[in-house]
């Protein structure tokens, strides 16, 4: 028993000074963002100001409700002095009626202010959210290369959420805290300056205590966060690697390592929690102390006739009320700061340069032949480092163009230019003789279909996914496309068939099957130009042989661009472009290039070269 009682006091002391040199990301973010919070506030205001009328009404209500909240205890004090202790001047019933009115009003005003604010806040958040979403669809593709998806997601969710919850309640609370604090002090001073001063003795004590605590908790929480983070990392690693741990029979070892980390968390967690747990106790203690001071000093003052009993009661209630706004202010301040930081992160995205607005004169094309010409096209992702250098070639309608070359040769960049994810630095690309920069992006893309390496499927039924490229396609058209892509038979074998719902992480169907659906999707779109960007690279050879058929049918009668690293898939192309370090080093059909004994022939034979090495 005695041992158990002493246990909590036996933790090794907190390591306060050992603050993390590089503060946690959240901290750094808060600091970094504090730089322009005025500007950010102005922009939040800009959003809010569309509801300016309603908002001023809410402000007015907040002021009224603060007044009413202050009036309540004052009236009770009056009741005690005038009616309970003294003879009472005006009719008692009338007074109580007045008090009832004050109370009812207080409730109604409080309710109104909150629900109106919620309406305003949610409308604002809705607008921010849709603005952000629309902006993401206007941003140039390079933006998504620079920013991690998780980060963007967090802006859309966490940051918007923190703005939302702050606007919902914290904004009002912050305002009313300030008003209440000021109002309380004024009324208290009016009633009894001496007692007010004595009540406020606790304020410096509170400041001192809070300083003592927060100086420690900051470092302690960082320490705890770091330990938690480390444990999370460890758990993630060992659970993801469970197969290896099992295969090597190393369970005991990781359990031991886990134990060490767990102990560290317990220690740092203990001190962080204990010391931060002092805060409410300090507040309570000081509340109690001010209560005692008011009762004691107020009592003596009342005996001397300096104040009335009612004043004591008013003070007792006010003293309880003014520590609350102080506490609220401290709490709300952090929420407010994180909301401002959140809003700033949202605005950062909104401020990103959009895809150059299509020229006013840009055309919308109805039908396309599919003749593509690259004329001396150069392109650089960064200034001065050309990824593509003076590429020129022609593709007649219906031709199949294969693009090969080592990693980093610029194959994908070429496609990015064709789809206008990027624009050329020099030179022109024409479609049916027209510079593609004079064609509206959406119009241009509507004549192309892509099958990309990571055949991305959307959550929804298989049918919806195939129909993605052509919304008005009938069910039989969808099935027709699936048959052409060799996907029909496996779809029919799935439970649910075409109505089988695919989940975001794609469980249930294999990578190869996803690829087939992506091909069916492209077939249904029936484009003039088809782009296969390593469409079969993640598929094993055996499956690839099986889907070759589908691809061949897909390419018939369309201008097709095929990027592949397995050379066997491209032997039948009308023309093969061989890229190396951004330059087009060779082009021509398979046989012709083989005859040249150049890079293509090297690459082609390289794939079989090693075989003799293995044999020997």
């Amino acid at each position: 028993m005695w041992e158990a009682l002493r246990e909590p006091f036996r933790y090794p002391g907190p390591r306060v000074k050992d603050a993390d040199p590089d503060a946690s990301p959240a901290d750094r973010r808060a600091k970094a963002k504090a730089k322009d919070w005025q500007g950010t506030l102005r922009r939040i205001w800009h959003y809010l100001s569309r509801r300016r009328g309603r908002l001023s009404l809410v402000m007015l209500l907040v002021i009224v409700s603060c007044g009413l909240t202050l009036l309540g205890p004052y009236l009770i004090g009056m009741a005690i002095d005038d009616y309970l202790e003294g003879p009472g001047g005006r009719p008692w019933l009338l007074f109580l009626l007045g008090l009832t009115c004050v109370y009812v009003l207080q409730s109604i005003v409080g309710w109104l202010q909150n629900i109106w604010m919620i309406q305003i806040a949610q409308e604002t958040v809705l607008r921010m959210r849709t603005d952000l979403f629309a902006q993401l669809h206007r941003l140039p593709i390079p933006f998504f290369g620079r920013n991690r998806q998780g980060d963007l997601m967090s802006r859309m969710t966490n940051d918007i959420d923190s703005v939302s919850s702050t606007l919902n309640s914290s904004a009002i609370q912050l305002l009313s805290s300030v008003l209440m604090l000021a109002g309380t002090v004024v009324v208290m001073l009016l009633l009894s300056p001496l007692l007010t001063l004595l009540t406020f003795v606790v304020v410096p004590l509170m400041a001192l205590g809070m300083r003592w605590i927060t100086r420690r908790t900051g470092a302690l929480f960082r320490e705890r966060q770091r330990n938690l983070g480390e444990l999370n990392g460890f758990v993630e690693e060992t659970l993801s690697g469970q197969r290896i741990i099992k295969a090597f029979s190393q369970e005991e070892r990781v359990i031991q390592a886990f134990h060490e980390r767990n102990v560290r968390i317990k220690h740092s967690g203990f001190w962080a929690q204990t010391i931060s747990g002092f805060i409410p106790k300090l507040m309570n203690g000081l509340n109690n102390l001010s209560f005692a001071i008011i009762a004691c000093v107020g009592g003596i003052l009342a005996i001397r006739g300096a104040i009335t009993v009612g004043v004591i009661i008013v003070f007792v209630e006010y003293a309880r009320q003014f520590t609350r706004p102080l506490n609220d202010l401290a709490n709300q301040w952090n929420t407010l700061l994180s909301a401002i930081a959140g809003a700033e992160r949202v605005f950062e995205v909104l401020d990103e340069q959009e895809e150059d607005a299509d020229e006013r004169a840009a055309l919308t094309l109805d039908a396309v032949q599919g003749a593509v010409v690259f004329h001396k096209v150069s392109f650089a992702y960064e200034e001065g480092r050309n990824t593509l250098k003076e590429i020129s070639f022609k593709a007649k309608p219906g031709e199949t163009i294969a693009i090969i070359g080592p990693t980093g040769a610029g194959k994908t960049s070429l496609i990015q230019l064709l789809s206008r994810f990027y624009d050329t630095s020099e030179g022109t690309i024409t479609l049916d003789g027209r510079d593609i920069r004079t064609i509206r992006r959406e119009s241009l893309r509507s004549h192309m279909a892509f099958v990309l390496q990571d055949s991305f499927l959307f959550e929804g039924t298989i049918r919806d996914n195939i129909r993605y490229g052509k919304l008005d396609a009938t069910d039989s058209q969808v099935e027709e496309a699936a048959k052409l892509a060799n996907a029909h038979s496996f779809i029919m074998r799935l439970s649910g068939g075409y109505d089988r719902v695919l989940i975001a992480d794609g469980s249930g169907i294999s990578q190869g099957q996803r690829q087939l659906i992506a091909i069916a999707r492209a077939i249904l779109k029936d484009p003039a130009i088809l782009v296969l960007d390593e469409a079969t690279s993640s598929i094993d050879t055996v499956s690839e042989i099986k889907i070759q058929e589908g691809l061949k049918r897909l390419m018939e009668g369309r201008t097709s661009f095929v990027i592949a690293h397995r050379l066997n898939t491209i032997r039948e192309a009308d023309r093969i472009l061989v890229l190396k370090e951004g330059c087009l080093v060779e082009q021509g059909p398979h046989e012709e290039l083989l005859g040249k004994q150049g890079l293509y022939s090297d690459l082609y034979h390289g794939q079989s070269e090693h075989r003799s090495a293995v044999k020997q």
Partner: protein
Amino acid sequence: MTNILRFLGKYRIAAGMAVVMVLVELAVELIQPYLISVIIDEGISQKDTSVVLLWGGILVGGSVAAFIAGILSSFFASHASQGFAFDVREALYTKVQGFAYPVFNRFATSSLITRLTNDVTQLQDTVFMGLRFMLRMPLVVIGSIIMALVVHVQLGFLLTLTVPALLVFVIWIMKRASVLFKRVQMKLDTLNRVMQENLSGMRLIRVFVRRKEEAGRFARLSQELMGSTVSALRLTEITMPFILLIMNAGIIAVLWFGHKQISMGKATAGEVVAIVNYSLRTAGALSAFSMIVAAFSRARASAQRVDEALSTDSEAPVRPGRNTEGQCEGGIEFENVSFQYPHSETRVLVDICFKVRPGDTVAILGATGSGKSSLMQLVLRLYEETAGIIRIDGRNVRELDMAYLHRSIGYVSQEVLLFSGTIRDNIAWGLEDASMEQVMEAARLAQIHETIEKLPDQYDTLLGQKGINLSGGQKQRLSIARALIRKPAILLLDDSTSALDVQTEAALLQALKGMSCTTLLITQKISSTIGADLILLLDEGSLIAQGSHGQLLASDYLYRRIYESQFGKEGVAHVGSFT
């Protein structure tokens, strides 16, 4: 929930003390209004300064006592909750590590991680809060009522009337609100999913020109989210004003009756004041009620998730044997082996028969989903075959001790799994107490030694978040080194050379030849099958062909197609002339 709370039992003394300390604090707070009524009635009214000083002094002393109790409760509650969380984490992790592999796979890894981290932290916070604040609410309410009744029975009774009405109301609101908030959460999840999808599929959306449709879908969902958020919040916003209204009505009633009683001489002003004060405290406590219920329901969800993992039957579907005799030679035999994953209807492997002599190299070829990896998992006994017999050195694997078996196997998985730490740690991970020589030896065999030597810190280079990023091929070679350091009798390579270039792969295979271990090699590349002693060709779970390269090339159509696709038709003739 109760299952989880069992873990608190060990800390019942600390937890009990925390509660006792909270009671001390409460006692001090609850006595305050009573004492002030005494000061008014016996001090101020009688103009007796000593009474005021005496009770005032007691109030000051009481607040100091309450403060100390509060500080102590922080220590006790913290110890109880941290110890509790520590034990739950420990138990949960040990449990998870003890799961047989099929049981482990029943849970998504991410969900197990959440259970071990967020859920436990959530529970710990709730225990801490529970010991310090949640008990407070009902105690303040009950204590206030009792004290009010003690001060003045009839007036106190008015306060007693309001509380049940308020409780009923608050509970009703909470119930309605939880339904509404659930809907909000659902809408939010849907919205986030759409967002996630849009970000991942951004290119695709652009090339399929679906911006407007996606924006429309998003706008509709956002609108719905706003609608449900507003209606949920509107409901909960009624709570506070309503509580205030009822409590204030109570206060007015107390004033009204108090006035009557005083004029009849049945009550004093001090008593009325005290009861008013108790009413205010009750209102304050009740307003925290919704917060507490919300915290509790979150904690209950966490407790259920943790409990689900803790109470999972880890009764192993894979039953290890005890045989640890002798040295493993590396002979493997499959006799009519079939396998299907638990909770699945389709057989992944059907009637597989083959035999491997110690020291042979076996290449396994087949399409995705043809059962190659499953076959390896059976050798590893991560899963158990559903029919047939697997023999190692002629002994049924079911009889072998798991650790004994694993000691003889070096396994390299398809996806590279390295751990944070240095390169040396990672290689030595395969063999406890490995010496530096052994680590380097393994690295040389895995063709990674020279690459490591070129790194700034060589074998002490850190991997993972804090360290450097190796290329896919380098990581693969590291994990091969980790397997080789065990000098295994059986080496399992699950497509683990896919990211190696041709020369390195050839050198690696050459080095493996020098080791006297049986090698099972899953591969896509014909180049690695050519030198194998035995090639297994799997298709949809069946072993459709087996034999040497030359045999298969001559006899099997599919094998020849694969070969042609990788080497071209001219290659067939070429190799044909070699064999």
